């Protein structure tokens, strides 16, 4: 990959790709966004392999539809929108499949997550990062998808309310409201960790 495009902004790179069909510019953008997108999709879906596939599809869509990007918007907003839509489609597909499945793990269960009946786990280990992270991810997957998405974009990906509003095509008020509800649900589910 050429080092020529290393210092370029996202918007400059996509423009170069659109105008000259330069594959190097495309590859730089892929390298920049593959990890954050994988993280975002994984936190939303909960499956590493599926997340990788979705991000691959996102990049392919980016490649095929480069001309649909308009320069007045941020590139990150555009590519996160594509990834978010593909992730939501995957959730819908899973929902249809789980109708036939006996084991349904829908996000409607508001009961606090339990570590388990394993009494071997030392209560002090509640503070242990690993177990806590697993619990948080489990709780995140139990939050309603419409809230989950914005909580991830805000608290994990650290986007502003305006950027999230553009990505999700929601008003800023709705974005804030959903973030608040998502956090509230998470807090309830993680009652054992976050004592109110």
């Amino acid at each position, binding site marked *: 990959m050429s080092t020529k495009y290393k210092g370029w902004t996202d918007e400059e790179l996509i423009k170069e790709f659109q105008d000259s069909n330069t594959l190097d510019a495309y*590859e730089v953008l*892929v*390298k920049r966004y*593959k*990890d954050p*997108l*994988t*993280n975002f999709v*994984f*936190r939303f879906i909960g499956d*590493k392999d599926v*997340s*990788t*596939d*979705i*991000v*691959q*599809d996102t*990049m*392919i869509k980016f*490649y*095929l539809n480069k001309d649909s990007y308009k320069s007045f918007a941020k590139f990150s907003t555009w590519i996160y929108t594509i990834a978010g839509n593909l992730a939501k*489609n*995957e959730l819908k*597909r899973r929902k249809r499949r789980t109708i036939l499945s006996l084991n349904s793990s829908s996000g409607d269960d508001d009961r606090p997550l339990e570590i388990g009946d394993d009494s071997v786990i030392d209560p002090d280990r509640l503070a242990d990062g690993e177990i*806590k*992270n697993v619990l*948080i*991810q489990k709780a995140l997957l139990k939050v309603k998808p419409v809230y989950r998405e914005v*909580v*991830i974009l805000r*608290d*994990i990906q*650290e986007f*502003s*309310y*305006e950027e999230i509003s553009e990505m999700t095509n929601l008003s*800023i008020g709705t974005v*804030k409201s959903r*973030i*608040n509800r998502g*956090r509230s649900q*998470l*807090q309830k589910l*993680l009652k054992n960790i*976050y004592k109110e």
Partner: protein
Amino acid sequence: MGIKDQNNMDNGYEKLSKDLKNLPKVNAPDDFEYKLMVKIQNGQFETAKVKNESGKLWKFIPATAVALSALIIFFVVQETSVNNGNPYFDGIEQPVAKTDNIPDTVNLRGPASPAIDDGSYLVIHPNDVVKKEKPVTARPRLKGVDVDGLIDGSLINRSGLNRQHVVGHGNKSFNGFLVDKDRKEIERLRARLDSIKAEKKKKIAN
């Protein structure tokens, strides 16, 4: 949107937000770009999800085939059972109606009478009602004789003048199939006709 507003929004969830931010980052696999470029160069733009979905449809084929077979068998069996309601039904139309509706006809006319000169004849119906009816005209080109018609009386004509319309086509000497004017003969033939009809009914009933 001021910073103050954002802070207000985040109040109460600082710890949670911090923990979310500090979740370990999940990265793409090392061969991500390689696989992506291979797909692009090979023109493999069909999404993996679509592939998986179509690949999993095959498992529904046996169930669908069984269901379709059951439907087909059901409709076929139903159709054949309609025809098999009557164990004696062999697909051939039963001429029951025709037999039942044929009147008991005997030409009772005596020798040629100038009163009935138009070729009509008297017919005795099963309810003993006597009616004057015109015979079915034979096809002029046919030289043959309708024996059945003569037996059941539909073509019998005692009129000498009309004899030629039925048999012989003008051959006045031929009288082999004409009903005799003898009344006894008429009664005998009528009885015979009755018994033939009764036999037919019995056969149908069986």
